[in-house]
């Protein structure tokens, strides 16, 4: 339990990486790193697909990373209508780790440019839910 607190609408409650949500509460966006082979993962995983080890440790996504691509949604799937419009994106960090998420509404559309620097920041949502969003560094 615990992971159901992640995002506007969540579809999964149980995972071995539910601590991700606790880290968001504490102000950090975290990925996992394989202690055996060093592979870094975001989204965090409990198991390494490179060497099949399950001995993982947490590392913080710091940055800034660079905006790879994005889109502004004018329609939403069920459950997200009140958030409209919102922008989703992919951000890539220097170590090659990519993070998928939303861009903060604080950044106007006209200031968005592929390649711009962004940082992932934990945010509190209504109903005791938590997430993260991308802001200017």
């Amino acid at each position: 339990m615990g992971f159901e607190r992640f995002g506007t609408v969540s579809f999964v409650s149980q995972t071995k990486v539910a601590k991700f949500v606790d880290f968001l509460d504490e102000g950090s966006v975290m990925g996992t790193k394989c202690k055996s082979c060093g592979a870094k993962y975001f989204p965090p995983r409990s198991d390494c697909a490179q060497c099949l080890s399950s001995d993982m440790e947490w590392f913080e996504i710091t940055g800034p990373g660079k905006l790879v691509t994005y889109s502004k949604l004018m329609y939403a799937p069920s459950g997200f209508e009140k958030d409209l419009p919102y922008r989703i994106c992919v951000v890539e960090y220097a170590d090659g780790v990519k993070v998928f998420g939303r861009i903060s509404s604080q950044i106007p559309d006209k200031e968005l440019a592929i390649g711009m620097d962004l940082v992932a920041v934990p945010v509190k949502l209504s109903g005791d839910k938590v997430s993260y969003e991308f802001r200017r560094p």
Partner: protein
Amino acid sequence: MQKVGIIGVGQSAFVRGYEGSIRELVFEGFSEAMRDAQIKPEDIQASIICSAPEYDKQRTPAGLMAEYLGLNPQPTFYIESVCSSSSMGLRVAYSMIQAGLHDVVAVIGFQKMSEISSAESQERMGRGADIMWESPFGTMMPAYYAMHARAHMNTYGTTEEDLALIRVKAASYGQINEKAVYRKGVTLEKALESDPVSTPLKVFDCCANADGSSCIIVASEEMARKLSPKPVWILGLGAASAPINMAGRTTFSGLTCAREAAKQAYAMAGVGPEDIDVAEVHDCFTIAEMMAYEDLGFAEPGKGKELIRNKETYIGGKIPVNVDGGLLSKGHPIGATGGSQIRTITLQLRSEAGPMQVDGAKIGLVHNIGGVGIYGNVTIFGRDE
């Protein structure tokens, strides 16, 4: 190794709201394929049922369909790779026939999307991605493809007008396909003025949801020659996968699963992109067709826009693509789509495509993608001289 051929094809009309049950919908595509092949249900040795779950309430639809179509007691089972389910079904049918398990197999695809609302449909499709790490942000299919469109535009200078031109082409052929859900023409102005759905994609950049069914009858070489005057042969099959989560992708200006599947299919068939006379590509969005031009090698990376600007993908051009209206105008009933694409190419290679016919087409290609490039299937077909 023996060849494997297609001896019958069928599809229902693709419609907005089918007024019947899924079993009746499936009967339409199946019965047309059976009439085309001139065989009876007892001649089918196994059936493969292909769709995406959760649009209707039926669990394990294979059992239902086999009974309704008169296919008991032959084996039947379900194959799912969302939008490419029926191409994956064809791959399995090919394997079973090559293994000598069966000589005649029916690949049956269907989807009744109108059982649920459009927003519910977007939610279901959105959950065809990573539900743990992406769906909580409110994702949907147009937004994923829109991110690819943005990347393609940024990398190669592709424009919104280039994408609109793909829609104009699709609509010009949708008008002459009596099975298409969208039968109207679309002008460049109309496409460009349509409302944004997920920037930079607009309403006319998106395919139409539809209800529909398709059926492909696949046979061993011996049975195909015995039963069919004009068998169409499967020359090459390619299939690949890519990370479901966008964070795992290496590029957003193409689909790596399509590139890998194309490489396999070309190698197996012993042909290259320049040998393809007519192609069906998975244009669930205009950007998907643009990327397909490049992923399939019809154009160099970044040069896909030249193909559409110069009308090279129209009939009469260098490589006619989606001259049946594509998913954009024909409609995209998820599980039925691959079968419909295979049907179009089969009719083309039999010179039976009517007003959509590409004269003298001998080699055809089907590019069918599941999800946002999670599953890639590329299949190449040929005919006897």
